[in-house]
């Protein structure tokens, strides 16, 4: 038995590694994606006042702190049985759409993009954002940096801080918008709308115009048939901030649709002894190990699955992009046939960037956005509540139970990336199986193509790589059973 250890692949809020076991023929016998970290938020939040949760749980992730802040705030509203003012809801969603653009776009340009712009086998010294700027021109770099700054500006105006925002509270938000501030937000939103269109052009010119990349996206080693989860509005259109959770099966048929409050009837988590991170699955299907297909309990919660789980986008440009996406990949522009190619997640992310841009402009120009009515004081006795949003990396659920003073008794969290733990593991394994063969040299390009299998999911560490050469450290050692290093490749 030969073992290949990829350690560290990257930092998934700490560390991650891959153990690949080869059989005597040099084929991949098994593969384990191992998450070695646990911080125990659910246990140590017990005893804390529930209204502090938006500020405590944002520290789960400094990359998507806005998602935790808002899921926690919604759970708090639910705990206190309070309906927040319409303007407060719009202010939260406005901030959230700005966050989404910053997060998605930087992944597209800096983490995922270089694989396509420079090519999966390009020298690693060039396969990064600086290489991209060199190839596409300095104006592209300036546009990306400018868009990131515009998104940050909106987050800070409404959230108080760009990382670990503070303004959501049970009953609403503590910071509204003056007319003057709104003008700045609208200007930034306009800039980001143009940026959304620009990103579609880059996608068209660099990726979709290249048959080699289309073939790569469509290839079997990056394809799995999982069920798809996403939050939808009343029209079954994608929504990031609010709605019902919908799940469609591998063929696109709706098999679940529920209020986030009912999540325990629909999803559960499995434990393995070799990872600190649990493996969520659909309860109606049950846990059947690491398998895909109609009977598997595994589902994805990603930009791709959100598109699959919806009937379309709520805004016109995004809807046009949605139709083009499905027309190209399935031949059916309605989107009723799901896309299962993992690498198409990058494209789905661009569709969401366009939606976020249009939605943000709708909200920024809404008459109510400058309303003074942004908070109500909760009056009910606090009990139990669930809050959910779509984090960039998947459906995020916070569930709190308090005593009658609003002191936490129980906390349960299912985090965006966690939903995809099973699928990420299988995507890595399939890529490894497809790429590592007896007699084939394990080159740096091979390593990168294994990385591409999980990079498409944008696991939560991704934003941290967003502004310098976006390489993840990766080393593969092929060892004989006695531990001797037979071959090594790395970058």
């Amino acid at each position, binding site marked *: 038995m030969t*073992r290949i250890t990829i350690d560290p692949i990257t930092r998934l809020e700490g560390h991650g590694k891959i153990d690949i076991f080869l059989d005597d023929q040099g084929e991949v016998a098994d593969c384990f994606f191992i998450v070695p970290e646990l911080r125990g938020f659910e246990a140590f939040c017990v005893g804390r006042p529930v209204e502090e949760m938006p500020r405590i749980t944002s520290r789960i992730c*400094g990359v998507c702190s806005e998602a935790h802040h808002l899921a926690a705030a919604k759970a708090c509203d639910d705990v206190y049985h309070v309906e927040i003012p319409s303007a407060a809801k719009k202010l939260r969603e406005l901030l959230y759409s700005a966050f989404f653009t910053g997060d998605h776009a930087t992944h597209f340009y800096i983490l995922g993009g270089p694989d396509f712009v420079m090519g999966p086998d390009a020298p*690693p010294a060039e396969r990064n954002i600086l290489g991209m700027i060199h190839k596409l021109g300095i104006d592209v770099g300036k546009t990306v940096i400018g868009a990131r700054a515009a998104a940050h500006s909106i987050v800070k105006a409404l959230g*108080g801080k760009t990382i670990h925002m503070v303004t959501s509270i049970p009953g609403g938000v503590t910071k509204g918008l003056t007319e003057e501030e709104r003008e700045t937000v609208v200007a930034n939103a306009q800039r980001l709308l143009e940026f959304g269109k620009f990103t579609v052009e880059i996608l068209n010119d660099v990726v979709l115009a290249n048959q080699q990349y289309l073939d790569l996206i469509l290839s079997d080693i990056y394809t799995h048939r999982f069920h798809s989860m996403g939050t939808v509005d009343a029209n079954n259109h994608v929504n990031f901030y609010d709605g019902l959770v919908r799940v469609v099966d591998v063929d696109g048929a709706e098999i679940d649709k529920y209020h986030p409050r009912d999540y325990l009837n629909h999803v559960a988590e499995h*434990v393995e002894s070799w990872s600190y991170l649990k493996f969520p699955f659909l309860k109606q299907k049950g846990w059947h190990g690491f398998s895909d297909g109609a009977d598997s309990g595994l589902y994805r919660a990603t930009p791709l699955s959100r598109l699959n789980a919806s009937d379309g986008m709520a805004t016109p440009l995004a809807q046009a992009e949605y139709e083009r996406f499905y027309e190209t990949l399935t031949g059916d522009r309605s989107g009723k046939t799901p896309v299962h190619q993992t690498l198409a997640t990058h494209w789905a992310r661009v569709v969401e960037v366009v939606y976020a841009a249009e939605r943000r402009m709708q909200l920024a120009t809404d008459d109510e956005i400058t309303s003074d009515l942004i908070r109500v004081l909760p009056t009910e006795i606090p009990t139990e509540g669930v809050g959910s949003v779509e984090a960039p990396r998947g459906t995020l659920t916070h569930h709190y139970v308090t005593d009658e003073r609003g002191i936490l008794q129980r906390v349960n969290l299912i985090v965006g990336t966690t939903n995809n733990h099973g699928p990420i593991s299988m995507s890595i394994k399939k890529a490894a199986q497809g790429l590592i063969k007896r007699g084939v040299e394990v080159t740096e390009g091979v390593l990168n193509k294994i990385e591409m299998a999980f990079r498409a999911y944008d696991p939560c560490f991704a934003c941290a790589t967003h*502004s310098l050469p976006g390489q993840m450290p990766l080393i593969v050692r092929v060892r004989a059973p006695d531990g001797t290093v037979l071959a090594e490749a790395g970058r």
Partner: protein
Amino acid sequence: MTTRLRTKPKLALYWAASCGGCEIAVLDIEEKILDVDAAFDIVFWPVALDFKVKDVEAMEDGEIDICLFNGAVRNSDNEEMAVLLRRKAKVLVAFGSCAYEGCIPALSNTTTRTATLDWVYRDSPSTINPEDVRPQERTETPLGTLRLPAFWEKVRSLDQVVDVDYYVPGCPPQAHQIWAVLETVIDILEHGKPLPPKGSVLGAGDRTCCDECARTREEKRITKFVRPHEIIPDPDKCLLDQGILCMGPATRSGCGALCVSVGMPCRGCYGPPPNSKDQGTKMVAALASVIDSKEPEEIDRILDGIVDPIGTFYRFSMATATLAGAAARRTTVDAETGDERLTP
């Protein structure tokens, strides 16, 4: 890419048990990151560059000029990296609240390892685990052994594990403060400016958050505490004056009073002010002078309005809290070697 010139000082950045916010904060210095790249030879930064642990192991001791280490020490992996980087770096900086004083992850020190693991893997309502499978440091499979790091009893700050030279507070440190620290370092290394005294706090002010707060303060006379969601406070007056527990008086300046300026009380992420080692003690002292009563029973009633004193006074500094004393140490048997070892 980093231009590798032998003459440039070597910089390393690393994260242990953290949220990633400190990394993003470094990137938020935006175009100045190119100045950093020009001034330093970045030799280790796992989130952004290609160098690996083995590259660090291969360095001479003290070869790294300065290492910015963020994140707390939660497990054995974090500890090994702290020890390694201490050995390889001339100057080790605890960067951000987690490395400095434990931050939010150290609230875990209010509970136990067992309670944490029982909840996550057995008792949480979404977990289905009839055989009570638990993550193991070693899992034997027919193909080979799979390993996980050890999950320690307590979360520790960096200086509870290795010797630390300087501290940069904040959750996260604000971008303008990060740049100020880096400029200072460049001045020292390039222009021979003297090093600050060991143990200094860099990238922050030397007063309290209140000194940066624009709200109007009066002679405080608190008769009742209220929680932030229970009142809509006056936008111009001190929050503490209005009965909202605000950690401003017990928190170092440096952030610009960001939270307070948008109507939310300070929670203390910049750590204790100068001349105070313990934020909770400092806050109790501050409160003692503003509670409007001399009657012990009345004082008790007022203080009962503070619903989570420990979790509020030590929101960001539980790892270093005086009341926590020395971190509880327990002995366990190493699964691999059979040796007894101390579990922090």
